[in-house]
């Protein structure tokens, strides 16, 4: 797809994004005007424009080609419409003379843009749950194609998580709502402005008594200021915030402990002993990327000199739901939710604090933790999960204080949220007022309360009692359908805004592209209520900071845009009163036998459901279950056995009269007598992916049992629901694949990774063939299993960088997922509370590659630099190479999957530096050869060799823990070569003599000497379990 031809249907966002000069806004506006009038015209001038017609959108085939499950089955009419459209297009393409496609040149070429040349990078920020993470987004001629972490941003440090990586797919998602509607009818923006004016005027007399604004958690200073200003005018109006994955407990806990809302920021770089009470600080928590980085850094010390000098870190995890944090623990204790508080209290007691807990010496785990913590005063750290009750948070603070960790491993700062509040209570009042008919106008800015508000709030039916309902959202979702006004929201990559990171750093959200559709930001919608509705969000944000960036505003502003953050806005540490452990509430201690207990957690991929239509996130295998496309009700082996449940059985889970259907998956590590449900699936109204996939657990979620529902009933429905799991066997069957050892073991025998005789790598002398001489680079990759936390970011980074298609549930079930890089996950130890091993597997780029030998047409051959190259246009698709690949890293286009990139908006997604593969072609990891070539060209221009670290593969770049290192083996002191020399370095299946270029560093565990060392062995017990009903 040649970028220029895109321009008519899509003007780039050069002005403000690239050129923050004062004249920018005017230019920006003019661009947008041009865009508008172009859309206004009736004739189409290009296939793109024709394609943009709504009826075509409707008739679009499902995102990905064949086999993709289209949630709405195609009926006859649909089929005919499709036929019609396809014929029409066929006719067009069949013309001997292609219809002309006019190209609109830049009116004023933005600076730095080299058409067809090197891409530009712009800093922006993405917020999830209100907290900002810095991104650096790659843009080709005004077309964002790839998101990376922003190295300058404290919450990113150059890494991006799966949400950040997948944000581009969200941007180009063809199912995003595209038009402003009133009662399903398309309306122009001015009509909306008018409606809002009248609404506000109507509120004036009652001083806004009937006006409510419902937002997600807001950390954006600008937005907060806007709302405050509005409320100042209408004092009776109310602003309510609601996040389904609420952090109320955190705020409560802080109030309990310190008497005022305080955010406590952990600093893992100083922590030697970490106890997580249900906190998934490696997966989803404000600043989790930062914490992962620090954690990995401490872990690395285990393998180095510091390690022997008592450096390194030991992680204890007490958790209810299996998370990657628990998977990376040195000791993990799976407990039922009700037991966490008791544990915390007895720990408090064991540490000599007060808190009404009994030291409960019986518990070996607890005593080990206690003594370890006691031994590391000031260098220990207690982290408490959002899902834990306030008391546990308070206890956590108390223990941290008791251990003197404040100002060491934890810092108290002012709350990052613009208005910390008890969101649940506020929402409750709101619905009560709605019930009472006291709410006249409700502005819902983002969020999807109809779908995700607690069941007992009966939000949907109460919403109907509101006279004027406005909803701003990316998709026409469950809430939109119940609101008269639906305003399509501008994606954050199309928006001007700001937000704060976990440490308070103010981060700028700057657009990479003009809104693809008629999208609006919260700022603009709020502006509609003020008397200056014409102000663009750019102006709003700029104006807010104008007064706050010191004398040289333009300079500072330009800098802020460049860095993606406003310098030195991180909140300073503040003094807090010494927290006391809260008195034990009655029911807490009573938390004993409650029968089967349901756990609610955010989905690792879909979060609270906001990403429910993101194909990349849907297909991404969840870190531990390796389930893609659906969520499932997760049971422990024992519980499933007791209930006589098999995988894919459908059960009905009932709680307080509400009930849902869900498919069963058996997941070791889930505490017995609990069922784990991930929220955010089973959307009733989303897009082609979101709708109808998975199971919606929100109906079981009550305001007084947000995170766990004690006493649910589980009944077998009789039928089954197919689940798509990408890894049926999470058991090494005794093969030494993902190698790991305890620190002591490692100290005793640093060479442990090579102990097994079979593993002795055949030397070059053993080979009949003389190695090919290499006088140039020798690329290689090293993956540190000690650092890998299995977060999947690399998988999505690879997918985004290399134009890897989404194939759909059915194809995944058939074993045809296309991910070039997969993260294998294996269990060890005892099935009740297993050990976890993550192992990212890209192409090994073997020196003696089995795949190359058997290709009949030489479509995969070796480059002088040791790359195992795939020549797509030579490949005839015998699949012999894949059969002969011991690592099974090759992926095949069984259908014309890449058709999905022909959808009008998806056309802009692919990375122009990477081929889009055709049907019937084999593909695989290339070590991001396009990046290698780019760097080599740059180096050649300067007439030098490529420097170490100059090239990073997509996976390495985004890895939060820097587990992946790419480099040149020919350069003896490259980071890679140094890693290769470490004793822990080993090659996967080296005994086959493939001589892989990709190598691994064996993992290390740091168990407490006080606790029995976990056994590490492949299971056979699970085999039958893992076998059932797949593919």
């Amino acid at each position: 797809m040649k970028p220029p031809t895109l321009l008519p249907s899509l003007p780039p966002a050069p002005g403000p994004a690239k050129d923050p000069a004062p004249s920018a806004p005017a230019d920006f506006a003019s661009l947008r005007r041009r865009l508008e009038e172009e859309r206004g015209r009736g004739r189409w001038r290009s296939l793109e424009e024709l394609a943009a017609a709504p009826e075509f959108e409707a008739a679009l085939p499902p995102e990905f080609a064949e086999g993709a499950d289209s949630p709405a089955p195609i009926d006859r009419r649909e089929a005919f419409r499709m036929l019609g459209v396809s014929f029409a297009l066929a006719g067009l393409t069949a013309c001997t003379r292609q219809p002309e496609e006019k190209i609109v040149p830049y009116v004023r070429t933005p600076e730095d843009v080299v058409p067809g040349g090197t891409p530009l990078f712009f800093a922006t920020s993405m917020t999830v749950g209100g907290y900002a993470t810095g991104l650096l987004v790659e843009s080709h001629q005004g077309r964002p194609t790839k998101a990376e972490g922003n190295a300058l941003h404290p919450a990113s440090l150059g890494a991006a998580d799966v949400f950040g990586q997948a944000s581009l797919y969200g941007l180009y998602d063809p199912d995003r709502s595209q038009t402003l509607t009133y009662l399903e009818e398309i309306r122009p923006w001015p009509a909306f402005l008018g409606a809002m004016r009248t609404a506000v005027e109507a509120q004036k007399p009652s001083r806004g008594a009937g006006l409510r604004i419902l937002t997600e958690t807001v950390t954006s200073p600008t937005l907060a200021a806007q709302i405050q200003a509005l409320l100042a005018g209408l004092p009776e109006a109310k602003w309510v915030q609601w996040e389904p994955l609420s952090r109320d407990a955190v705020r409560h806990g802080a109030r309990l402990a310190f008497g005022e809302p305080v955010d406590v920021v952990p600093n893992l770089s100083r922590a030697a002993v970490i106890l997580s009470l249900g906190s998934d600080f490696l997966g989803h928590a404000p600043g989790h990327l930062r914490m992962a980085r620090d954690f990995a850094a401490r872990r690395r010390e285990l393998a180095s000199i510091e390690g022997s000098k008592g450096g390194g870190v030991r992680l204890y995890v007490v958790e209810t739901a299996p998370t990657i944090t628990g998977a990376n623990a040195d000791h993990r204790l799976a407990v039922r939710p009700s037991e966490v508080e008791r544990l915390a209290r007895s720990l408090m007691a064991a540490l000599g604090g007060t808190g009404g807990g009994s030291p409960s010496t019986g518990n070996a785990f607890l005593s080990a933790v206690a003594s370890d913590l006691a031994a590391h005063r000031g260098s220990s750290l207690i982290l408490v999960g959002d899902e834990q009750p306030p008391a546990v948070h308070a206890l956590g603070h108390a223990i941290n204080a008791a251990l003197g960790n404040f100002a060491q491993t934890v810092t108290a700062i002012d709350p990052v949220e613009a208005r910390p509040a008890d969101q649940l209570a506020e929402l409750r009042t709101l619905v009560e007022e709605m019930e009472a008919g006291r709410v006249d106008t409700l502005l819902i800015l983002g969020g999807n309360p109809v779908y995700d508000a607690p069941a007992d709030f009966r939000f949907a039916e109460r919403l109907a009692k509101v006279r004027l309902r406005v909803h701003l959202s990316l998709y026409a979702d469950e809430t939109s359908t119940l609101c008269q006004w639906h305003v399509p929201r501008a994606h954050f990559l199309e928006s001007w805004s700001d937000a704060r990171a976990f440490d308070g750093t103010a981060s700028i959200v700057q657009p990479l592209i003009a809104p693809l559709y008629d999208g609006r930001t919260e700022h603009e919608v709020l502006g509609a209520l003020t008397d200056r509705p014409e102000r663009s969000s750019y102006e709003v944000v700029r104006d807010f900071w104008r007064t706050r960036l010191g004398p040289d505003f333009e300079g500072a502003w330009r800098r802020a845009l460049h860095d993606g953050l406003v310098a030195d806005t991180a909140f300073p540490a503040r003094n807090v009163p010494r927290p006391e452990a809260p008195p034990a509430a009655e029911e807490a201690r009573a938390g004993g036998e409650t029968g089967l207990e349901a756990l609610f957690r955010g989905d690792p991929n879909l979060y609270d459901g906001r990403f429910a239509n993101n194909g990349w996130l849907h297909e991404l295998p969840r870190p531990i279950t390796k389930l893609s496309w659906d969520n499932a009700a997760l049971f422990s082996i024992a519980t499933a056995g007791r209930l006589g449940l098999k995988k894919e059985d459908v059960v009905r889970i009932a709680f307080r009269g509400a009930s849902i259907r869900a498919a069963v998956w058996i997941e070791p590590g889930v505490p017995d007598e609990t069922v784990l449900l991930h929220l955010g699936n089973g959307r009733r109204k989303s897009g082609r992916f979101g709708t109808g996939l998975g199971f919606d657990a929100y109906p079981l979620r009550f305001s007084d049992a947000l995170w766990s529902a004690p006493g649910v009933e589980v009944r077998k429905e009789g039928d089954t629901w197919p689940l798509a799991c990408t890894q049926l066997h999470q058991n090494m069957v005794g093969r030494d694949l993902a190698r790991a050892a305890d620190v002591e073991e490692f100290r005793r025998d640093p060479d442990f990774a090579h102990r097994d005789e079979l593993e002795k790598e055949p030397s070059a002398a053993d080979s009949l063939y003389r190695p090919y001489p290499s006088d140039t680079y020798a690329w290689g990759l090293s993956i540190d299993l000690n650092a890998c936390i299995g977060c999947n970011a690399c998988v999505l980074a690879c997918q985004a960088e290399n134009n890897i298609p989404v194939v759909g549930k059915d194809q995944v079930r058939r074993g045809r997922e296309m991910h070039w890089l997969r993260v294998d996950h294996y269990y060890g130890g005892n099935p009740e509370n297993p050990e976890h091993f993550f192992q990212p597997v890209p192409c090994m780029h073997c020196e003696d590659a089995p795949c190359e030998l058997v290709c009949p047409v030489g479509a995969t051959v070796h480059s002088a630099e040791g790359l195992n190259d795939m020549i797509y246009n030579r490949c005839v698709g015998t699949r012999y190479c894949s059969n002969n690949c011991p690592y099974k890293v090759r992926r095949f286009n069984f259908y014309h999957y890449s058709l999905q990139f022909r959808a009008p908006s998806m056309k802009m997604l692919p990375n122009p530096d990477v081929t889009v593969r055709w049907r019937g072609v084999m593909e695989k990891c290339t070590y991001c050869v396009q990046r290698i070539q780019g760097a080599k060209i740059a180096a050649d221009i300067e007439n030098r060799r490529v420097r170490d670290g100059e090239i990073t593969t997509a996976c390495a770049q985004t890895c939060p823990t820097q587990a992946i290192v790419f480099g040149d083996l020919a350069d003896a002191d490259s980071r890679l070569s140094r890693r290769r020399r470490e004793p822990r370095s080993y090659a996967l299946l080296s005994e086959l003599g493939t001589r892989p270029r990709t190598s691994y560093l064996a993992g290390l565990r740091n168990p407490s000497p006080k606790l029995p060392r976990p056994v590490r062995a492949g299971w056979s017990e699970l085999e039958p379990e893992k076998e059932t009903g797949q593919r």
Partner: protein
Amino acid sequence: MTAPAASVPAEEARLYGIVAEFETPGGLVAAARRVREEGYRRVDAFSPFPIHELTEALGIRSTRLPWIVFVGGVLGAATALFMMWFSATIHYPINVGGRPLASWPAFIPITFELTVLFASLAAVFGMLALNGLPMPYHPIFNAPRFAMASRDRFFICVEAKDAMFDRERTARLLDSLGASIVSEVEG
């Protein structure tokens, strides 16, 4: 009994030879021997299946076919080996799985196959060429009842071109050998 001898001398020129039909292979072989003993050389026999005795009876020289086949085989082997060696080392040398460019063991199967292929083609087409087939028309087909030669009858033909050929004597000779029918065939 003799076939009616042609009376018009002009016809002599168009005479191909004299054909005798026999009931049994034995008869044919015996006849062939006698005819050859008499000194006839341009003699051929026709039978519904191969009769090896005829080879020496008619003094048929052993064929050159095996040599042709041999050459074909050698040619095939050479072609294959050269093609693979040239393409893998000179024309398109590239590192495949770290194997040597000239991986001769991998070249063996194709070399073998092409040897057999070329040799077989040589055998078949050599045979056809030497036999002068395809030949849609041949005078012998004019012989009465010659269609039986592909069923259950055995024929011997002395060609008019033979030095010793004489319409009367040759016909009488064949007749005396117990042929069921002796007839002249026009060329």
